């Protein structure tokens, strides 16, 4: 793949939060790229973990056809731009809580309370134990679990009701950010409004919610995404969609699936700015 010269190291262009630079003063090592489960697709994905401050970062790759970098006196093909942005670890924990919740559900339909170190277990991705070191875990887990304390030891059980409410807050939080960042979520509605001249404001809010739901759906499994859509009272398929996305298409990537639920006619999704296959990119380093 490379130009045959062994000394020619592949360069990666990264955008990192500035505070990592300052934080690096305190650490000799501790920033590591690890493969963890992707909470949406269940596949392996590269994340960045800050061991010193116990933070999780998601890696997204911007990739568009026909681009290359000139970096000082060198050329780097591909024109890839890697983003490391802080990620809410609860999305990953949720993956394990739901899994354990399902496995332990008996005939009565009641899940068991379990200690966290028996929940976050993964033969495929052993680095998941890093999640257990995160600070304020107990506080985080309160959003999505019922908890019990026996002999000063905490036991947790996945709660779908609490999770949906937590996700609803996430959606509204994202809607605010979409508005402040002036992300265009409703080109279609605006165009329609131009001709019919009604329902502009009410439709717009729904478009924001649908868009935010699509973004959040990139971090949760489809089942939960569907439940959230129902809870948010999002219409399952919009009548105005020219090509309703086929639900049976399992070949779609996580990002595509999320986008399929969003009305894409005439709008730009933030996620579409990134290559959907960001899994292998870092692994190649």
């Amino acid at each position, binding site marked *: 793949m490379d*130009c045959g010269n062994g000394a*020619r190291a592949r360069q990666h*262009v990264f955008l990192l939060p500035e505070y990592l630079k300052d934080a690096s003063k305190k650490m000799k090592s501790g920033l590591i790229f690890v493969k963890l489960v992707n909470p949406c697709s269940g596949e392996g994905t590269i994340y960045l973990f800050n061991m010193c401050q116990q933070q999780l970062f998601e890696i997204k790759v911007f990739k568009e056809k026909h681009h290359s970098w000139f970096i000082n006196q060198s050329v780097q093909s591909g024109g890839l731009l890697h983003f490391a942005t802080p990620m809410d670890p609860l999305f990953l924990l949720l993956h394990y809580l739901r899994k354990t919740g399902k496995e332990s559900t008996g005939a009565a339909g009641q899940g068991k309370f379990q200690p966290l170190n028996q929940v976050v277990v993964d033969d495929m991705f052993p680095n998941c134990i890093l999640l257990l070191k995160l600070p304020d875990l107990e506080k985080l887990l309160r959003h999505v679990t019922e908890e019990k304390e026996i002999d000063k030891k905490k036991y947790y059980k996945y709660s779908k009701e609490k999770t949906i409410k937590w996700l609803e807050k996430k959606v509204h939080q994202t809607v605010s950010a979409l508005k402040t960042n002036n992300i265009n979520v409703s080109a279609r509605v605006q165009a329609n409004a131009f001709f019919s001249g009604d329902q502009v404001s009410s439709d717009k809010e729904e478009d924001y919610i649908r868009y935010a739901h699509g973004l*959040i759906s990139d971090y949760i499994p489809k089942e939960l995404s569907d439940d959230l859509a129902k809870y948010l009272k999002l219409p399952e398929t919009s009548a105005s969609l020219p090509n309703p996305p086929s639900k049976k298409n399992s070949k779609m990537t996580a990002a595509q699936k999320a986008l399929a639920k969003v009305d894409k006619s005439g709008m730009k999704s933030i996620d579409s700015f990134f290559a959907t296959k960001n899994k292998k990119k870092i692994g190649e380093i």
Partner: protein
Amino acid sequence: MESSDEVAVEKCRVHLRPGTLRDAACATLHLLPCEVQVNGPAPVERFFTPAIRQGPDGLEVSFRGRRLRGEEVVLPPGLVGYVTVMEEKGEGPVGKDFSEGSSNNDEREEQELAEPPEALERDFDQFIGAAASFSRFTLWGLETIPGPDAKVRGALTWPSLAAAIHAQVPED
């Protein structure tokens, strides 16, 4: 997937040397609107840089006989750009050269709180370091400056949106 090798890969951690983030020299980056199929040295300073002209609206240059138009893109606040490279195997811990005063006691403590070093660094682990940093780059388009709809500009708004998606929500 291969079974035994795969396990090693799954366990493998790629360490980013923190010291290199502080000491990375400033780099000049250009994002070209074409795919150059090779990775390696290029005399950018000899051919490309001297040909850049300040036109009436934006920068102009030509590459392989095609006219490019471009402009400086400043990274969103709070972000730093880095160019990272993989260390060759057996190159040794470059970090030692960079982390001046690493025998500092505070630092030791911090280290031990996190995880003992031997647990962090194992034989099959790999290391990357930041070779250069940047706060802006030049974005080039063919014939015209990439407009506000350019995908890369959209991507640069991602960190602020990601912050909202992943921020903690208030408890009830």
